[in-house]
């Protein structure tokens, strides 16, 4: 079947775009090299912090997403959009935002001190986990919220009429389907952590594989070791992906007509209060550090040099290009194998990927000439696993509910997508596009190796400002980045919900 061929080809391309650069680095580095005791310690830390961070992010996301799914209040959609922001912040900005709240001189300690309570010390393993939850809770909430919104209103009506336990008959089956994938994606993101783990981990105890890769690359120029470590990352990512996909239940929720999702559960005061507490918890945990970023950035906004604006323009173009590219790659890959292939992209170090691409392209073109396309491509690869995770459940249910009708009407190939699947996936598509765009805005990616003086992106410009003592302008630029990322996310996400229900 033609569509199968397209899927296989796309999967091979995606896998190749990851594996070939890694192989190139390995080849140039003269083959695999052994791991030292420090590397094994780093591997252990990398795995357990990623597992715990993913577990907590997903676990906390359940009550938060549930509360958001069944409560309606003024500003709900704005809150949901804003809560997505930590996921797309550049690391350095997010760290400073977190420290403004949880740091030694942060908000919490300023509140605790006058009460005579012991000081909160953020630095340590708990700091790493806290930061990772801060980054990934928004993604987990959104992934699960999608699941809740995908349960057709009819099911809720049926359950309400039977006074059935919603949790057991509707919510748990939905979660069983979504949780393993959400866990895997976040686990794999946390595997690549470097600056966050180091800074909030308080020192070399919190050494990750990614730091070892950076060290091998930057100081030792030991490409064999960098590639070996990247290979370890790849294996971890693949195992995580494989396990998650195997455990994910595969029963769709069934179709419903697009009515407003009205619910009859949770009317009791206790559950109202609990939902309110969860929403308030998530909102303050995620939004207060963002507000700190915004407040710190406001004074710098006025005196930002022109290059910041042109870098911002470049970043927006980059984000839009990466979004188009990601969706193009995503549609043929909405299968189990496709998702596995895509997980390769995010599990491997961006530094190694960039180096490999550089090695491959450098004999053919001037690296600076392809800086933006390559960055776009790598960003697209990085966003692909999230996009697939977001889109697959809805494609599965569209297929299950309307596949036979489509077949009976002779809809195949592109018309089937145009008439049936894409409209059925409209809401997750908008979300996925917004996520990709925002992620690509904040990503430093491979541009470090490829860029020349005048093709820098906004995140790179922020680092430049900070590296030149321009802390205030850097804060302003960070606020600009935050606003642009959120703006792009909002536009796409809104587009996806334009005619949708709830």
């Amino acid at each position, binding site marked *: 079947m033609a569509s199968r061929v397209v899927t296989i080809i796309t999967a091979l391309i995606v896998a190749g775009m990851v594996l070939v650069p890694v192989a190139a680095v390995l080849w140039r580095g003269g083959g695999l090299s052994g791991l030292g005791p420090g590397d094994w310690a780093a591997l252990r830390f990398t795995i357990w912090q990623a597992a715990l961070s993913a577990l907590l992010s997903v676990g906390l996301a359940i009550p938060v997403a549930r509360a958001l799914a069944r409560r309606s209040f003024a500003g709900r959609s704005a809150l949901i959009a804003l809560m997505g922001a930590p996921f797309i912040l550049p690391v350095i900005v997010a760290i400073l935002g977190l420290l403004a709240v949880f740091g030694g001189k942060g908000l919490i300690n300023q509140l605790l001190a006058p009460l005579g309570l012991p000081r909160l010390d953020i630095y340590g393993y708990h700091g790493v986990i806290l930061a990772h939850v801060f980054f990934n809770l928004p993604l987990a909430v959104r992934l699960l919220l999608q699941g809740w919104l995908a349960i057709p209103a009819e099911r809720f009506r049926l359950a309400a009429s039977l006074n059935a336990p919603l949790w057991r008959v509707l919510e748990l089956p939905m979660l069983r389907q979504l949780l393993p994938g959400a866990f895997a994606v976040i686990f794999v993101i946390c595997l690549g952590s470097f600056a966050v783990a180091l800074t909030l981990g308080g020192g070399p105890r919190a050494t990750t594989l990614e730091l070892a890769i950076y060290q091998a690359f930057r100081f030792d120029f030991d490409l064999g070791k960098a590639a070996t470590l990247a290979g370890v990352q790849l294996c971890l990512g693949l195992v995580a992906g494989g396990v998650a996909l195997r455990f994910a239940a595969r029963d769709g929720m069934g*179709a419903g007509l697009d009515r407003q999702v009205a619910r009859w559960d949770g009317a009791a005061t206790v559950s109202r209060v609990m939902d309110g507490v969860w929403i308030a918890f998530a909102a303050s945990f995620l939004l207060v550090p963002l507000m700190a970023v915004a407040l710190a950035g406001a004074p710098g906004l006025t005196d930002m040099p022109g290059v910041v604006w042109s870098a911002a323009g470049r970043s927006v173009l980059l984000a839009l290009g990466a979004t188009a590219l990601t969706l193009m790659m995503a549609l043929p890959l909405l299968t189990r194998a496709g998702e596995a292939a895509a997980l390769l992209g995010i599990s491997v170090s961006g530094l190694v990927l960039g180096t490999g691409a550089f090695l491959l392209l450098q004999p053919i073109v001037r690296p600076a000439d392809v800086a933006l396309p390559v960055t776009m491509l790598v960003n697209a690869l990085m966003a692909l696993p999230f996009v697939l995770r977001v889109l697959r459940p809805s494609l599965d249910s569209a297929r299950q509910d309307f596949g*036979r009708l489509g*077949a009976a009407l*002779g*809809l195949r190939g592109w018309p089937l997508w145009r008439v049936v699947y894409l409209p059925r996936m409209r809401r997750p598509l908008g979300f996925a596009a917004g996520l990709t765009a925002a992620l690509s805005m904040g990503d430093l990616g491979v541009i470090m190796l490829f860029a020349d003086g005048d093709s820098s992106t906004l995140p790179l410009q922020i680092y430049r400002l900070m590296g030149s003592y321009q802390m205030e302008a850097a804060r302003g630029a960070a606020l600009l980045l935050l606003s642009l990322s959120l703006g792009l996310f909002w536009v796409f996400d809104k587009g996806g919900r334009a005619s949708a229900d709830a």
Partner: protein
Amino acid sequence: MLTLDQITVEQGAFTLQADTTLGAPITALLGPSGSGKSTLLNVIAGFAPVRAGRVLWRGQDVTHYTPAARPIGMLFQDNNLFPHLTIRDNLALALTRTRPTASQQVQISGALDRVGLAGYETRKPAELSGGQQSRAALARVLLQARPLMLLDEPFAALGPALKHKMLDLVAEICRETGMSAVMVSHYPADALRIADAAVVVADGSVTAPLPTADLMQDPPAALRDYLGV
């Protein structure tokens, strides 16, 4: 004239065999729940693969045709309309992959008129009642203009009066257009109402068709258990 030529279907531990010809204008598939009525309908429609045997339509082997290539218009139990499309766009899918032309729009309006939904072109399915949704789906089968209509209990969710009306409408349309129909039904009364002939699907096999009234008068053992007589 639909021939099931030594068909064997396997679904897990379940096996169904059929070797019969359905020639009546409207044939009902009767039998207990889980006997394989819907499976048989899916074999005819091309949604379930056969392990052995052939499906013939007017002597032509259609066993390996895709569902859309078969001479069939089908009404499913549910999800007969795409919720995100207007009624007109839903119906247009029977005629074209692109925007319906002016004459196709006239055809669509005619079909809607025929099922009693004149003027509903721009509504979305969610704005229609259950009965109206069934009518719209029937209108689309009408537009598909295939010689054989398959009904997988599409009216099960409707009230008795409404269901009878819909069944009568199906029968009328078959008469007017010369379309044949094969319907699955749980209710012998439905079969008696419009089916000229009926087969019994039970214990992994399919009986030869008999006039519905005769069958009801002297039901075979499997059907007797089911009917509780």
